[in-house]
């Protein structure tokens, strides 16, 4: 009979607690991620358009949008006619 393997995460959990800051950071990220992804459901948008719709600060949208792009949820679309802002869309 196969024995259940001990997960090392259970061992560290007995010695370490997760800081309030780490928990808060995760909550914040999940909230912002949801807002950005939802905003892009309808169509591709630029960072200022997402910020206006979600009421998030522009730099916060840039940081998390680029992170979501890095991890494959978002891809880059076209640049606008003024060659200023790219639009971003959900990755299918």
């Amino acid at each position, binding site marked *: 009979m196969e024995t259940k393997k001990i*997960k*090392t*995460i*259970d*061992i*560290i*959990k007995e010695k*370490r607690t*997760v*800081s309030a800051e*780490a*928990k808060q*950071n*995760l909550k914040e*990220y*999940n909230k912002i991620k949801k807002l950005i992804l939802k905003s892009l459901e309808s169509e591709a948008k*630029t*960072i*200022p358009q997402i*910020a206006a719709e979600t009421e998030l600060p*522009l*730099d916060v*949208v*840039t*940081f*998390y*949008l*680029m*992170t979501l*792009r*890095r*991890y*494959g949820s978002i891809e*880059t679309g076209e*640049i606008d006619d003024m*060659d*200023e*802002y*790219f639009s971003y869309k959900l990755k299918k």
Partner: protein
Amino acid sequence: MEQQNELSFDTLVIGGGIAGSEAAINLANLNYKVILVEKDLSLGGKMIHLSKVFPTLDCAACITTPKVSETIRHPNITIYTYSEVKNIVKVSEKKFTATLVKKPRYVNEDLCTGCQECEDKCPVVVKDQFQYDLVGRKAVYVPFSIANPRVVNIDIENCILCGLCEKVCPVDAIDFTQEDVEIPLTVKSVIIATGFELFDPTQILRYGFGKFKNVVTAMQMERQLVPTRPYNSVLRPKDGKMPDNIAYILCTGSRDETVGNPICSQICCMYSVKQAQLLLGALPMADVSIYCMDIRAFGKGFCEFYQQAVGMGVEFHKGRVAKITEKENGNLILRYEDIEEGKIKEVEHDLVVLSIGVLPNPDAKLLFDSPVIESDEFNYVKQTDELLCPPDTNIKGVFVAGTSSGPMDIPDSILSAGAASACSANYIRN
């Protein structure tokens, strides 16, 4: 804390930047057994994060990665990354003792294949220090794409202990039971190659770094100029706009008594001239202006490199920027004295790059218990015979390589490492 048996080598090289790697390879090629200890998660130092190098515009990664691979593969070099040494004591000639501390990555380095499946699943996002905070990374992460060793690390302070990484790892590499490991060391000589630190521009409140998101450092610009850049193009961190009127402020934190660093950093003029040229290549419609006291183009081909930038349309303004203010649209107003016209001027740019200076790494001083290592008046490792034997320190058998002894560029760091390895070999042999 786990204790391990004593290790013995000919030379201890502290720091795995370009200088440390070069010194280690030279000694290893002469058949000396070398232990190379690197504090960070990968070898390569600052150079591995650069775009291209002045004045040749060769790709920095194309030079660093083969050097790093050669170091890692060399049979005479034993490497400890994410490790530090402490309590170095000179017991007698050609006998130094020290303690090596290997910090836990919470991953078995021999098993991890760097597949990043764990990274994909990790729910935590924090600022990526290897992209100089421009983008996020996970709590379990491969430091950067060309990191060597290319294995993950768990940032335990930000980990929420969800266990997903351990669950998905196909080779059972995650190991949360790891602790600090202490290993006693004995060596015959030591090379200090702990490199330099970057000036923290938040010290100059007038420039608004941290508050004005479109004021970035030159290191952040290096990352924007590499193929593995944080964004899809060179963009403003505030709003993702493609900049078209970029300013450089030279000597940020150098030649400035008010921030405690009176000396020239020797690299900022040339790396700014380099970045300006690269920006004109990446953003052909952009204007680039450089605000400086003067341009110090003292090396071989440097003056021609500067003239090439002028020919490409980079504008040079003589004058130190006094203050930056931010407009509502994120653009920045620079107030400066135009020295040539003798007038105070205000100019608008949509992105400002601070050419931050080089500072000594205070670590070098903390490594030694007895005797202590001496510093020079600027807090770099003191070269006791700068003219005749530049790698010598106040401790016979301890040598200094690269920017640990003062600001210098890559070719000079490599030369200095060559000298340090030759002196080390000579010391052991005689």
